[in-house]
């Protein structure tokens, strides 16, 4: 082993952390990709999946995404990061609901 | 600094004026060209200005008659109607005709300065009667011409001749 410089002491993460701000909207991204992929698989020329299969995928994925994105919504606190996390969660929940609009409002590809 | 309410009032006032002006302008721009009071008023004003301008251009009435202008007078021809007829018959596909925006054809000669030409298509003298007859049936006078018989009526031909004689008589 070689000589190492002194390791910097790890400092406490700022509560509640950047992760809580980014997580909900990352979940939104994954949910969006899921819906887009399911619809593309069912409705493009190749028709890898059937339309009901796409609806099932979205129906299972959406509640999961809502739970994962909404986790920590009720956590209290008024530090900026905590507020940011809460607002991000709410916007992401709404956006996930909007992602389901095509499946809710239409009954087929065309 | 300028924290007085009067300044934002001015700001909002000017912004509101801009909004109102844009709304008025939008409404006006929507009006049909033929049923548009503002446009018609502007056109009428323009016509009156043209009248004033030509009155000055012609000079005092006791001056001697302009024989050149009288030579090019087409009886019964209306230059303004002739200009529109040019568009109707598709003259612009082959000729450049000043004053007719779409007429930029290069198949035949430009009709700019037509009033100064000696002959029409090299076969007819450049006189009102000959020009009118030419427009009505070019192949009759020049069997090898590329200019087709456009089926022009006599009245339309007179109008078109009148317009063509406005092109460049005084240069």
């Amino acid at each position, binding site marked *: 082993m070689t000589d190492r410089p002194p390791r910097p002491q790890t400092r406490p993460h700022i509560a509640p952390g950047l992760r809580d701000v980014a997580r909900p909207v990352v979940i939104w991204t994954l949910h969006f990709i899921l819906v887009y992929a399911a619809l593309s698989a069912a409705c493009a020329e190749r028709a890898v999946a059937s339309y009901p299969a796409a609806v099932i995928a979205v129906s299972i994925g959406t509640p999961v995404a809502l739970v994962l994105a909404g986790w920590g919504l009720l956590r209290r606190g008024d530090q900026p990061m905590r507020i940011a996390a809460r607002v991000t969660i709410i916007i992401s929940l709404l956006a996930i609901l909007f992602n389901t609009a095509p499946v809710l*409002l*239409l009954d087929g590809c065309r | 600094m300028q924290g007085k309410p009067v300044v934002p009032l001015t700001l*909002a006032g000017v912004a509101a004026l801009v909004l109102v002006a844009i709304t008025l302008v939008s409404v006006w721009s929507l009006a049909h060209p033929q049923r548009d009071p503002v446009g018609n008023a502007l056109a009428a004003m323009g016509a009156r200005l043209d009248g004033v301008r030509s009155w000055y251009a012609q000079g005092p009435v006791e001056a001697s008659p302009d024989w050149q202008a009288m030579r090019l007078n087409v009886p019964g021809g209306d230059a303004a109607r002739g200009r529109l007829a040019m568009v109707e018959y*598709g003259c612009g596909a*082959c000729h450049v005709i000043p004053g007719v925006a*779409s007429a930029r054809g290069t198949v035949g000669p430009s009709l700019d300065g037509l009033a100064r030409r000696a002959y029409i298509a090299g076969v007819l003298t450049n006189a009102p009667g000959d020009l009118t007859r030419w427009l009505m049936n070019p192949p009759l006078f020049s069997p090898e011409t590329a200019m087709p018989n456009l089926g022009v009526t006599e009245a339309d031909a007179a109008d078109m001749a009148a317009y063509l004689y406005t092109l460049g008589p005084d240069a």
Partner: protein
Amino acid sequence: MNGPSTLDTYGSQTSFSSAGTGADATLVLTTAMSVAAAVIFLLVMGAVWLAWRRDRPGSVWWIWGGGVILPVIALGTLVVASTFTLAAIGRVDDGAPVIEVTGHQYWWDIVHDPEGRALRDANEIVLPLNIPVTLSLKTEDVIHSFWVPSIAGKMDMVPGRINRMTVTATEAGRFRGQCAEFCGLSHPLMAFEVVVLPQAEYDAYLEDLRSEARDADTAQLARGRDVFLNEGCIACHAIRGVAEGARLGPDLSRIGARATLGAGMWRMNVGNLAGWIADVQDMKPGAQMPSYNHLSGPDLRAVAHYLASLK
């Protein structure tokens, strides 16, 4: 470049007056959204105005109310309304008669297909009044976009795809359409006319497409027909009963009956026809057709008269 001649086109290419079910439903949506947008704009500007006059911090509930709750209600309504409108006007009726429209640089090939027999026309689409018709949109070269604002919204013509839309014209008359996707040099000169006819006249039109083109019954028209046959025009253009099969250029069997020349750009008459044949590259730069400026004067006149006679 030569520009289009003045045509009496005022108001024939606008989405503000609707003559088709698609444009109709869209106009309702447009009006509703415009009014809502104006109201929301005034509300937000009112909030700015109030904020300017205020001198102490407001509540975060303004952010929740103005930034989240009200927008979500408005947007939810919008998504539902627009999706239902979309579902209604975007439905393709498989049973409706099909008209195939193929975009070319810079003209439109039209095929009516009432009973499986291709009836070809160009640059003028005749539609029956109040009967749904399915337009089948293709392209021969680059992307074009089919747009007749008074009838329906636009639909692209994409290489390798066939896009279909069903339209129902609800008003007889002439409407103008134009290519809406930039397609090259003469893109602005790629328009067309839509003619909506009552059923009887529409049937007469189809009958006209089935029959041969008008005969050349004078010496000059016969000369024009011979020029057409001998000068290579038939390599690209077809005239039913005279020279069939060529599809590189527009079908000319009833060119004289169309109101316009050069894909909706010039008035159809002998003068424009002659100028077009002699110098098409000046009138429509980049068109596939070469300028036929080597024809003798009488030949040019004859072929122009012949084409104008094809009604």
